[in-house]
């Protein structure tokens, strides 16, 4: 029976075209991912190259005072992009992959965005996670909406019922064939992605694959549930399409709007004003309090003094710069807290909405979510601090530029760690699948023969 059901399935042109289109759009998405990774790689190489060039040139021309030199010199930290991000670009196309900072105040530097065409952000990337979240369900719906009703509408159902010992078994087989065919396309795409994008097979990739499989299982469960109500084809199609529109457009878009409304971030503007005033106003104030505040922050630099009667010193200058960061610190922390709150709110909502959950897990696993960017920013803060602490004593003692090894500052990398929380990855969508299947089971307890609806 299985063989003949497969034959019948394979011979319907529409369904095969659907699978082929799905596969093709998957391939396009992999190409988009490849393009993204290459561009990213290129960007990092360029930055590494320009950074060395920038250091060499500045060392050559600004060769008198190390304090002045460090006004210009930029040190870059790159956010390592795992190749898995080619499958789920997420926030990676909005947030910069590299931040190059001087040791001056960080607040003015860390929110720098990359150049991008906003039209592209509006339309969104055609990455694999998009194909997974939007296109796979459509094909699944097209495969399943008339699982029973096509037999009724084509007239084969009564013969099936009069012949079959268990018509439900046949329906299950039909569903399985469709499931396996879609699963095959999915796995094939993942295998191609593994080699084409050179993705290492690690926990993250396995979890990514499982998330994808669970997501398509979810849509099969929903379709199975809808089919179990024994309505006609157009009713099923309408209902499934409504579910699709709700889950992929209306609910996530509303959630976004609600989150923006619920957690506005005026702190973002606050940081700009505070850091600007924190630094610039010090020019017009007596030098002593600024230096005192600086030395309170860094007691280890207590022994350095501003030269009496001098109009200017690098100690004073960098102390002023430091104040830019210190005075914006409250706002900056508030901003980060707000952003983490936004992230947390959407994760909680995601537990109940498979599309949101899947997108977030995909972004999390491929390190393209907001959490990764916030981690990166925190690393930039550490990196910046470490550079400061390294150079401050040298600046205050007017260390000879020629004595420093300027080759020792290549582009640095930040490698975020992804911890796979298996229960969070698997349980929410799995539970929804189980609910759908059990509900459908209850509907199917009523003998199929009784739902034949004749006369």
């Amino acid at each position, binding site marked *: 029976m299985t063989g003949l059901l497969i034959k019948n399935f394979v011979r319907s042109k529409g369904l095969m075209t659907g699978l082929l289109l799905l596969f093709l759009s998957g391939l*396009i998405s992999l190409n988009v991912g490849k393009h993204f990774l290459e561009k990213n790689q290129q*960007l990092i190489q*360029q930055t590494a190259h*320009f950074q060395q060039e920038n250091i060499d040139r500045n060392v050559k*021309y600004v060769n008198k005072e190390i304090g002045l030199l460090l006004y210009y010199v930029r040190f870059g930290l790159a956010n390592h992009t795992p190749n898995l991000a080619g499958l789920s670009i*997420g*926030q990676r196309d*909005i947030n910069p992959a590299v931040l190059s900072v001087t040791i001056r105040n960080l607040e*003015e530097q860390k*929110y*720098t*965005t*990359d*150049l*991008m*065409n*906003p*039209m*592209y*952000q*509006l339309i*969104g990337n*055609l990455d694999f996670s*998009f194909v997974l979240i939007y296109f796979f369900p459509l094909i699944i719906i097209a495969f399943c909406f008339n699982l029973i009703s096509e037999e009724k509408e084509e007239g084969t159902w009564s013969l099936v019922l009069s012949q079959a010992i268990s018509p439900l078994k046949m329906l299950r087989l039909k569903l399985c064939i469709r499931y396996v065919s879609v699963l095959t396309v999915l796995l094939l795409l993942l295998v191609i992605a593994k080699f084409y994008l050179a993705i290492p097979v690690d926990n993250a990739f396995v979890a990514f694959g499982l998330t994808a499989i669970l997501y398509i299982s979810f849509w099969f469960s929903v379709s199975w549930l809808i089919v179990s109500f024994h309505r006609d*084809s*157009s009713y099923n199609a*309408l209902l499934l399409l409504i579910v699709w*529109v709700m889950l*992929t*457009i*209306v609910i*996530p*878009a*509303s*959630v*976004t*709007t*609600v*989150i*923006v*409304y619920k957690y*506005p*971030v005026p702190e*973002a*503007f*606050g940081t700009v*004003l505070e850091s*600007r005033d924190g630094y*610039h106003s010090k*020019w*017009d104030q007596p030098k002593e309090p600024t230096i005192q505040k600086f030395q309170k922050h860094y007691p280890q630099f207590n022994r350095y003094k501003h030269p009496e009667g001098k*109009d*200017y010193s690098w100690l004073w200058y960098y102390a002023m710069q430091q104040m830019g960061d210190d005075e914006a610190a409250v706002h900056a922390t508030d901003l980060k807290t707000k952003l983490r709150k*936004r*992230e947390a709110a*959407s994760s909680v909502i995601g537990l109940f909405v498979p599309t949101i959950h899947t*997108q977030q897990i995909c*972004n999390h696993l491929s390190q*393209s979510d*907001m959490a990764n960017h916030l981690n990166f920013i925190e690393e930039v803060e550490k990196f910046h601090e470490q550079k400061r602490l390294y150079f401050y004593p040298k600046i205050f003692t007017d260390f000879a530029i020629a004595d420093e090894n300027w080759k020792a500052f290549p582009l640095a990398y930040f490698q975020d760690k992804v911890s796979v929380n298996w229960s969070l990855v698997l349980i929410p969508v799995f539970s929804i699948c189980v609910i759908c299947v059990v509900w459908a089971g209850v509907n199917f307890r009523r003998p199929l023969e009784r739902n034949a609806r004749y006369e």
Partner: protein
Amino acid sequence: MRFSVLKILSRQVYRSTIKKRSTLWLIGIFNLMLGFAVVSGYQILTTQQQIVDKYSQQVRHRWEKSPDKHPHRMAHYGYVAFRQKFPLSFFDFGMNSYVGNAVFLEAHRQNTVNFSEASLSNGLLRFGEISAGLILQLLLPLVIFFWGFDLISAERENGTLRILLTQGISWPELIMGKCLGLFSVSLTIFVPVVVISLILLFSNGAIGDNWQSLGYFAILIVGYLVYLLIVSLLAVFVSAKSNTSKSALTKLIGFWLFFTLILPKISLVIGQNLYPSPSKVEFDTAVEHELLAQGDSHNPNDPHFKVLKDSLLQAYGVDSTHKLPFNYGGYVMREGERLSAETYKRHQAKLVAIYQKQQNVVRLTALCNPFMAIKNLSMALSGTDYATYHDFENQAEAYRYKLAQTMNELQIKLISNTTKGSSGKQAIINRKHWAEFPDFSHHFPAFILVFQQEKLAIFSLIIWISGLYFLVTLSSKHFKAF
């Protein structure tokens, strides 16, 4: 085409559609969603306006309250410009969330416009935002297709079509009548949101400065009406052309997916590959290299500035810059600012040209995609498109340049040429000069610019509606009665 027949046919479609319980549900749900979308959009807008107003005032206050100081320090203290939202932006969010909101303006440097909503968002934003624009452009057509897919094919299937045609109704009358009926059903969703939006528009305090938004809204309404008419006509036309209702529905859903999801994404990929745009590192490095080649205003031995110095010394007949009757440092800085701003502008223009080319690939698809046409038109009229944003960038840069140069002028005029440093008594000027420098005010582009920007979209909507109309009236022989 007889008007009375159109009226009978469209009234029949309207009544039979509206009678269904599912229709009432859909209309109810859509009105709720639209109401939610415009009200929450309006609240987000007013919250943002308040935030922007509050911080703009703070910026101005701190600027004016700055103590007496050297003007060049004031130029570095700089200004922060915030992007205002157009009063209509609650209707269609467009690119609002993807473009920056605040930019720090200072001498010598062009900073990026930061804090776009997208950069403060998690990955959810890529699902889109629920705005009236999104619902009307994307979801309403789907519903119209559902109401309209069997308007003619069902009549063919149950045989009533032949009776209709034998009663002397022509094909164009039949299609137009059904289309108008379908269109009038869609108005039950469109009209309420227009009314609510108008009320919200009037209750916004910012409307006083932007009366043009009322005119924009009127054009926007016309645009959407044409769009809904196109969608209705398309639904009925496909229904008339298809053999079965099922194939009509499949075709229409196919159209919808292709136009709203697939085509925009594909055109984006094509645009990206045809016109690669530089990254920030590349862009900054290119600007930096060119500036280095031109000369460094901070380096007194730089060849460019040496020529400048020599010609000045000669013109004034002195042998040292200290003997010039004005502040030489300020003069050099003004020259440097001019050079760097021009260079930056040139590179920025090149970058924007690349973006425009990329966008034009997407924009061009509007010719065959009414969805893209209304999307672009709606964004432009709601003040949430790229042109409006770019206009803000230009205004901010112009203000920055003016600020830097005004400070340089003050230095040239008021600071003694022999003064060293920037904190001594002679090096500072009175703070009254700060208040004399006007505040930054972001104003919105005039309609003619919007029109020029979106003439392709307007053209495309006209082409679609007239094309479909001619198709219906001319190809009536090709329709099948059974």
